[in-house]
C-alpha cells in the first residue's frame, strides 16, 4: 500500500503515513477527492535568530508581523493562498482552491515579489539602524490529493511536493529563489533562470534538477503563443467578420459580433489576421479583459477608447457637436484615468457613445474587446448599455470570448437584432497538419508522427502548438504525457466547472469511446442519479468538453471532444477512485455482454491501481478475474489470427498470472504461438520453453504437448517435431483435444508431404481438417487447407481437377477468413499458372497477396515474393522472377527457416537456368542441402547439379547426378517432380552430346507433364524437343 499524499510504501493496514503523517483512507474512496497539480512556494527568513538577539521582543514581534503580512499580500496579489506559517517560514500554494492555467508562473512571480518586498522591508529597518533581513525561497510543482471540503484541505497538501519545495528553499542562497525543473516546465517559456544543476536533497530519492529564478514574465497567457506559426484554414471565419463589417458600413448602424471559441482555438489570431487584411478602413480601438488586473473594472474599454478619444480630439476642433469637448473631458477624468466608470456608468456610456458618434460620422468605427469571458460584470453591463446608446451609429463591437461567457452572462447578445455570434471551431485535419509542419524545425516524414499530434489536438491550434513543441524537446512530455502547459490549461478549464459537472466529466473519462447517461450513471451512481447524469452530460456538451453523437435510439450519446481533455479529466481522479471506477465499468460491460478484451482491460487497470494504493482485500480475486478475461480474449484473438492484438492481450494476461497458477503455462504457450507466427523466434523459443517446463511441473499434459509441438517448430527441428507430434497424438486423444489433434495430424501429414507421398498426405489432412473444424480454430483450418492445396498442386491430381478442388475448398471455408484466402490462394494461383491461365492466376495472386498483407504473418514476407516470382516465371518474365526470388531469399534468411530457404533457392536456381545462367543457378544452390527425407527437393537439387556438371563438362558426374535425380523423383507421387527430373536429364544428355537419349528423356518429361496438365512444363519439353531436332 502506498501513501496517496507522499507516495511512501507502507505496510498493509497502516492508518497513517509513516513519513508525512497523512491519514490513510479506509473503505471506499471518497468520491469528491481529486488529484491536482499545484505549485508550492516555501519561503524562510534568513537571519531571524540574529534579529531576535538584537531587537526588543516588542519590536521583533512587530517586524515579524510586518513580514508575515507582506508575504501574504504578495502571495494573494498573484492569486495564491498562504497555507500555513511554520515559525519564520511561509508556505503558499497556487492552484489549490482555484486552478488557473498559469499557476506555476504566478507562483514564480510571487516568489520574486516576496524577495523584493523583503528587500524593501530591510531597507526600512536599515534606515532605523536595523539588520540585513533576507528570505530564501523554493518553488516546486507536483500532484496532490484534495477534497472539496475546505476543512480537510490543509492536511492533504503535504508530502513530496512540499518536501521538495522546502528542501529547495534550504539549498537557496540569501535572497535567492530556486525553482525545480517541474515548476519551470509548468511555468513555460516566460521564466528567466540560471541552471544550478541537479541537487541531492534530503529525503528525496532522485536528484532534483534546479535553477535560480532571475525573472518571471507577465502572467499573460498570450506571451507563450507562437505568432510566427503559419495561419491556416480560416477563410470562412474571416469572411463572416468581413460580412458583418460591411453591413455596419453600408447600413450605418451599430452591430455586436461575439466570436466564441474554446481556449486556444485561435480567436485572437483570427482577429489580428482580419485587422491586417482590412488595412485602413477607419478608427479601431482595442482592449483585452484580464481577470487579474490592477486596472479598473472597465480597463479593457478604457484601452479601447484611449486612441479613439485622442483621434476625436484632433479631428473635433471646430466640430458641430458642442457636447463633444465635455464628453472627452468626462472620459479623461474618469475612464481613461483609472478604468472606472466615473462619475457613473450612465454618464460614462453616454460620453463614449458621443465620441464614437462623432468619429463614425466620418468613418465607421471598430471596437475589439478580447477575452470577454474574463470581463468584470460591470464591463459587460456597460457594453450592453453602450450598444443601446449607439442606435443608428456606424460602430461594430467585436467581442472575443470563450464559451464560458454565456455561463456568467447567459443573456449576452440575445434579444437584440443587431447582434450575431460566430462560433469558431477546430481546424480541419489538413489545416492541422499544415500548422504542425510549420511548428517544429525538423520533422521526420513518418505519418504516425503527425497522426499522434493531430489526433490528440482535435483541431485546436494551441494544443497543436504545445504538442508539437513537446516533440522538439527531450524528456518531459512523451507519448503518454501531455505537455505541462497544455495540461495546466485544460486542468484550469475543468476546475472552473461546477462540482457536479466536474465530477461527471472525471468519471466519464473512465468510459471508452461513446457513452450515454445510463453508462455514466452505471459507474458514478454514488455521485449522481440518472436524471442528473442526463443534465450534466448535456451541460458538458454545451461547454464543449463533450461532443454529442448522432445516433438512432432513445439515449443521446457523447464522446470527449479530444483525447487531451479526456486524459486531463482522468488524471484528476485519485488512483483509489480510478480502481473502483474501472472495476464498476468492467462489471457494467460484463452485463452488456461486451468483449472479454474490454472487460479484462478495465479489470487489469483496476488491479494495477489497487495494488498501488490499496485496499488489499479482494485484490487477488480481482487479479484472477482480470487474468482470466485477458487470457480468454487473447486466445480468441489468436484463433481469429489477429496476431498483434493477441500478443498485447496475452502479454498483459501473462503479467497477471502467477507462477503457481495453471493459467500461466497455458497463457505462455499461446503467447509463444503468437510470437512464433509473427516470426519473433528467440522470444517464442524462450516463452515456449518456460510454458513447457511449467506445464510439465504441474502435470498439465495437454498444455505441455502443445508447447512441445510449437517449441519443436520454433527450433526448426523436423525430426523432433514429428516425434513430438506422435507422442502428443495420444495425449490429445485422451483429452479429446480437437485443436491438438488437428495440429498433430497436420504435422504428421507434413512429413508425408515432405516425403513426396501427397496422396497419403491428403488423407491425413482430411482428418486434420475435421479436427480443425471441430475445434473452430481458424489458423489450423487455414494451415490444413493450405497444406491440402500444396498436396493437390504437387500430387498426381491433374491440375484442372486440383484447381477445382481448391476452388471448392475456398468457397466452403474462405468466406470471411483472410488466413484461408492466403494459404489456399498460394497453391491455387500456381495451379492456374502451370495451366498457362494468366488471368485467373493474376486475379488469385492479387487476392492472396492482399490477404497476406492484412495478416502480418512473418512467413508472408517469404511466400509473398516467392509466389510473385513463381507466377512471373511461369509467364516467362524471368528477369522479374529472379529479382523477386532474391527478395524472397533475403526474407527467408531473416526468418532463419532452412526449409523455406531451400525452397526459395531452388526456385531462384530454376529461374536462372531458364535464363541460361547455369553458374548463377549453381551459386543459388551452392550451400543447399536436401536429405533423403525430402525426395522432391532432393531430385530438384540433383537435377540442377547435373546440369551444372554437364555445363562444366564433368561428363561422368553429370550423367550420374541426372540418373539419381530421376530415381529419387520417381520415389514420389509427384508427376511434376518426376517430369522436372526427366527434363533435367534431357538437358544434361543434350549438353553431353547424347541427342537420342536426350529426346527420350524429354518425351518422358512431356508425358508426365501432360498427365499433370502442366501446360507450362509441356511447352518447355516441346520447345526442348524442337530445338533438339535439327542437331
Amino acid at each position, binding site marked *: 500500500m502506498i501513501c496517496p499524499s507522499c507516495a511512501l510504501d507502507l505496510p498493509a493496514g497502516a492508518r497513517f503515513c509513516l513519513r508525512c503523517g497523512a491519514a490513510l483512507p479506509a473503505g471506499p474512496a471518497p468520491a469528491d477527492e481529486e488529484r491536482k497539480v499545484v505549485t508550492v512556494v516555501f519561503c524562510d527568513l534568513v537571519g531571524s535568530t540574529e534579529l531576535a538577539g538584537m531587537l526588543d521582543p516588542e519590536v521583533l514581534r512587530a517586524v515579524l508581523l510586518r513580514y508575515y503580512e507582506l508575504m501574504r499580500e504578495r502571495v494573494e496579489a498573484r492569486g495564491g493562498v498562504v497555507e500555513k506559517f511554520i515559525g519564520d517560514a511561509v508556505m503558499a500554494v497556487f492552484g489549490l482552491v482555484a486552478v488557473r492555467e498559469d499557476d506555476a508562473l504566478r507562483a514564480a512571480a510571487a516568489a520574486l515579489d516576496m524577495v523584493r518586498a523583503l528587500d524593501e522591508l530591510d531597507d526600512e529597518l536599515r534606515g532605523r539602524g536595523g539588520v540585513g533581513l533576507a528570505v530564501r525561497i523554493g518553488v516546486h510543482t507536483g500532484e496532490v490529493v484534495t477534497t472539496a471540503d475546505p476543512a480537510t484541505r490543509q492536511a492533504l497538501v503535504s508530502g513530496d511536493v512540499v518536501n521538495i519545495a522546502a528542501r529547495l528553499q534550504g539549498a537557496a542562497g540569501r535572497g535567492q529563489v530556486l525553482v525545480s525543473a517541474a515548476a519551470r516546465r509548468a511555468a513555460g517559456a516566460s521564466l528567466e533562470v540560471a541552471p544550478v544543476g541537479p541537487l541531492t536533497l534530503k529525503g528525496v530519492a532522485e536528484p532534483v534538477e534546479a535553477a535560480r529564478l532571475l525573472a518571471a514574465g507577465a502572467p499573460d497567457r498570450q506571451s507563450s503563443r507562437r505568432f510566427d506559426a503559419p495561419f491556416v484554414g480560416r477563410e470562412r471565419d474571416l469572411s463572416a467578420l468581413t460580412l458583418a463589417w460591411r453591413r455596419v458600413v453600408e447600413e450605418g448602424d451599430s452591430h455586436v459580433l461575439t466570436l466564441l471559441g474554446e481556449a486556444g482555438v485561435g480567436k485572437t489570431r483570427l482577429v489580428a489576421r482580419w485587422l491586417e487584411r482590412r488595412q485602413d478602413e477607419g478608427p479601431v480601438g482595442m482592449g483585452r479583459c484580464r481577470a487579474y488586473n490592477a486596472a479598473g473594472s472597465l480597463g479593457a474599454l478604457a484601452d479601447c477608447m484611449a486612441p479613439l478619444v485622442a483621434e476625436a480630439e484632433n479631428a473635433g476642433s471646430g466640430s458641430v457637436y458642442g457636447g463633444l469637448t465635455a464628453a472627452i473631458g468626462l472620459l479623461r477624468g474618469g475612464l481613461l484615468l483609472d478604468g472606472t466608470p466615473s462619475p457613473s456608468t450612465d454618464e460614462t456610456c453616454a460620453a463614449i457613445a458621443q465620441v464614437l458618434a462623432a468619429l463614425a460620422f466620418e468613418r465607421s468605427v471598430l471596437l475589439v474587446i478580447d477575452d470577454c469571458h474574463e470581463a468584470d460584470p460591470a464591463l459587460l453591463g456597460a457594453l450592453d448599455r453602450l450598444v443601446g446608446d449607439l442606435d443608428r451609429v456606424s460602430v461594430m463591437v467585436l467581442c472575443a470570448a470563450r464559451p464560458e461567457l454565456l455561463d456568467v452572462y447567459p443573456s449576452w447578445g440575445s434579444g437584440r437584432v443587431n447582434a450575431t455570434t460566430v462560433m469558431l471551431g477546430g481546424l480541419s485535419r*489538413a489545416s492541422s*497538419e*499544415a500548422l504542425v*509542419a*510549420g511548428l*517544429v*524545425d*525538423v*520533422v*521526420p*516524414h*513518418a*505519418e*504516425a*508522427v*503527425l497522426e499522434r499530434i493531430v489526433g490528440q489536438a482535435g483541431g485546436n491550434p494551441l494544443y497543436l502548438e504545445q504538442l*508539437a513543441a*513537446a*516533440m*522538439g*524537446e*527531450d*524528456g518531459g*512530455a*512523451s507519448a503518454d504525457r501531455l505537455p505541462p502547459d497544455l495540461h495546466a490549461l485544460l486542468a484550469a478549464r475543468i476546475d472552473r466547472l461546477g462540482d457536479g459537472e466536474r465530477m461527471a466529466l472525471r468519471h466519464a473519462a473512465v468510459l471508452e469511446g461513446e457513452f450515454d447517461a445510463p453508462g455514466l450513471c452505471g459507474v458514478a451512481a454514488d455521485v449522481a442519479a440518472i436524471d442528473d447524469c442526463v443534465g450534466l452530460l448535456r451541460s458538458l456538451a454545451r461547454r464543449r468538453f463533450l461532443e454529442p453523437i448522432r445516433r438512432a435510439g432513445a439515449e443521446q450519446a457523447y464522446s470527449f471532444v479530444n483525447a487531451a481533455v479526456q486524459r486531463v479529466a482522468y488524471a484528476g481522479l485519485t488512483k483509489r477512485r480510478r480502481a473502483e471506477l474501472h472495476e464498476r465499468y468492467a462489471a457494467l460491460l460484463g452485463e452488456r455482454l461486451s468483449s472479454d478484451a474490454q472487460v479484462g482491460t478495465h479489470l487489469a487497470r483496476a488491479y494495477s491501481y489497487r495494488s498501488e494504493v490499496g485496499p488489499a482485500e479482494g485484490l487477488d480475486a480481482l487479479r484472477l478475474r482480470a487474468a482470466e478475461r485477458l487470457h480468454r480474449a487473447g486466445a480468441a484473438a489468436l484463433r481469429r489470427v489477429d496476431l498483434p492484438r493477441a500478443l498485447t492481450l496475452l502479454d498483459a494476461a501473462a503479467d497477471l498470472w502467477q507462477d503457481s497458477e495453471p493459467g500461466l503455462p497455458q497463457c505462455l504457450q499461446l503467447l509463444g504461438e503468437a510470437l512464433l507466427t*509473427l*516470426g*519473433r523466434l528467440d522470444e517464442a523459443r524462450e516463452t515456449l520453453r518456460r510454458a513447457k517446463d511449467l506445464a510439465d511441473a504441474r502435470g498439465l499434459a495437454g498444455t505441455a504437448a502443445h508447447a512441445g509441438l510449437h517449441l519443436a517448430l520454433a527450433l526448426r527441428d523436423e525430426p523432433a517435431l514429428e516425434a513430438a507430434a506422435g507422442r502428443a497424438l495420444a495425449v490429445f486423444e485422451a483429452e479429446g483435444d480437437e485443436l491438438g489433434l488437428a495440429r498433430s495430424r497436420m504435422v504428421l501429414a507434413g512429413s508425408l508431404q515432405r516425403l513426396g507421398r501427397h496422396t497419403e498426405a491428403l488423407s491425413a489432412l482430411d482428418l486434420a481438417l475435421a479436427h480443425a473444424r471441430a475445434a473452430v480454430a481458424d489458423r489450423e483450418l487455414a494451415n490444413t487447407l493450405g497444406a491440402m492445396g500444396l498436396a493437390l498442386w504437387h500430387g498426381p491430381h491433374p491440375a484442372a481437377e486440383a484447381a477445382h478442388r481448391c476452388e471448392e475448398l475456398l468457397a466452403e471455408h474462405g468466406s470471411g477468413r483472410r488466413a484461408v484466402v492466403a494459404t489456399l490462394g498460394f497453391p491455387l494461383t500456381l495451379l492456374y499458372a502451370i495451366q498457362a491461365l494468366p488471368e485467373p492466376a493474376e486475379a488469385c495472386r492479387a487476392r492472396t*497477396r492482399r490477404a497476406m*498483407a492484412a495478416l*502480418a504473418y*512473418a512467413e508472408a*514476407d517469404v511466400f509473398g515474393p516467392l509466389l510473385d516470382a513463381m507466377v512471373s516465371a511461369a509467364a516467362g518474365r524471368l*528477369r*522479374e522472377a529472379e*529479382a*523477386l526470388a532474391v*527478395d524472397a531469399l*533475403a526474407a527467408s534468411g*531473416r526468418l532463419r527457416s532452412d526449409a523455406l530457404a531451400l525452397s526459395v533457392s531452388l526456385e531462384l536456381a530454376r529461374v536462372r537456368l531458364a535464363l541460361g545462367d547455369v553458374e548463377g543457378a549453381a551459386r543459388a544452390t551452392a550451400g543447399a542441402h536436401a536429405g533423403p527425407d525430402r525426395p522432391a527437393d532432393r531430385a530438384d537439387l540433383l537435377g540442377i547439379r547435373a546440369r551444372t556438371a554437364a555445363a562444366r563438362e564433368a561428363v561422368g558426374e553429370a550423367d550420374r547426378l541426372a540418373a539419381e535425380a530421376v530415381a529419387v523423383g520417381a520415389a514420389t507421387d509427384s508427376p511434376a517432380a518426376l517430369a522436372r527430373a526427366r527434363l533435367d536429364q534431357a538437358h544434361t544428355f543434350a549438353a553431353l552430346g547424347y541427342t537420342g537419349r536426350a529426346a527420350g528423356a524429354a518425351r518422358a518429361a512431356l508425358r508426365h507433364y501432360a498427365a499433370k496438365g502442366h501446360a507450362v512444363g509441356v511447352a518447355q519439353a516441346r520447345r526442348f524437343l524442337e530445338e533438339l531436332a535439327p542437331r
Partner: protein
Amino acid sequence: MTTTTSGASALTWHLLDRTPRDIAIATGDSGRVTPEWAWGGATGAGIRVCVVDSGVEPHHPMVGGLAGSHAVVSGEDGMSVADIEPADAYGHGTACASIVRRFAPQCEIHSVRILGENGGGTGDALLTGLAWAVAQRFDVINLSLSTTRPQFNRALRELADEAYFNRCVIVASAHNARVESFPWRFSSVISVGSHAEEDSSLVLYNPTPPVEFFARGQAVPVAALGGGTTRNTGNSFATPHVTGRTALILSKHPRLTTFELKTVLYLTAANVRGD
C-alpha cells in the same frame, strides 16, 4: 530521347490517389541502361550509406552491423558531431536503415543522430549533421526528414550543391503534407515520395516534380525498436528504397556522378521503361 507526360498537370507530392499507369512515360530507346545493367548482381558492397536521422539501434536483425555511429551534440563552441554508442530512442532511423539494408545487404551503414528523443529536431542540428556527412563524402545520404523554416534554406542549398558536385548523393524525402520544406525541394538532391503499390521494387519517375521519384511508402515492413518488426507509412519509408537502389547502382558503377546516377534512376524507373 524524347519525354512525354500523360495525366496530371498539377505538381504532385505523392502518388496515392493514382496508379503507375497514370504516369506512363514514353521514351525513345533508352539503350543499354536496363535494370540488369544498372544493378544486376550488385549487393551494395563498398558503398558507404549515411542515415541522418534519430540514430540506429545496434544489433537489430534487420539492420545488422553499423559501420559508424555519430550524433550532433551541443558544446560550449556550439554544435558538433561526436562518436556515440549506437542507440535510437525514437525508432525512425532504425526503420529507415532496415529498408536500406534490405536492398543493399553488403553496404556500410553509418548513422548520424540529429533528431531528439521525441522525434523533433532543430534546424541547426540538421545543418551540422548534414554538413558533417557531406564533408565525410559518404556515397549516399538518406534524409527521411525536412525543415519548413526558410532561414535554413540557403545553407541547406549550398550543402546540397557541394554534395552534388562531389559524388555524394543526398536522397531526401518529400513532406507528407502539401507544404514547402527543404532540402527535398532542391534539384541537386534526389527527392522521393510514396506510391500506393505494395511493391518494394517498384520505383517510378514523376513527370510533374517537385518530387522526382516515387517508391513504396504505405505499410512498409520495417525494423521496430527492441529487435522487432512493424509496418510504417509515410514518405520517410519510401526514401530508403531509393537510397538502397542508389547504393546498388553505385556499387556496380562507382564512377557515376550524381547527375549520371539520377539519369540511371530515371531510365530504369518502371514507368519510363514501360514495365
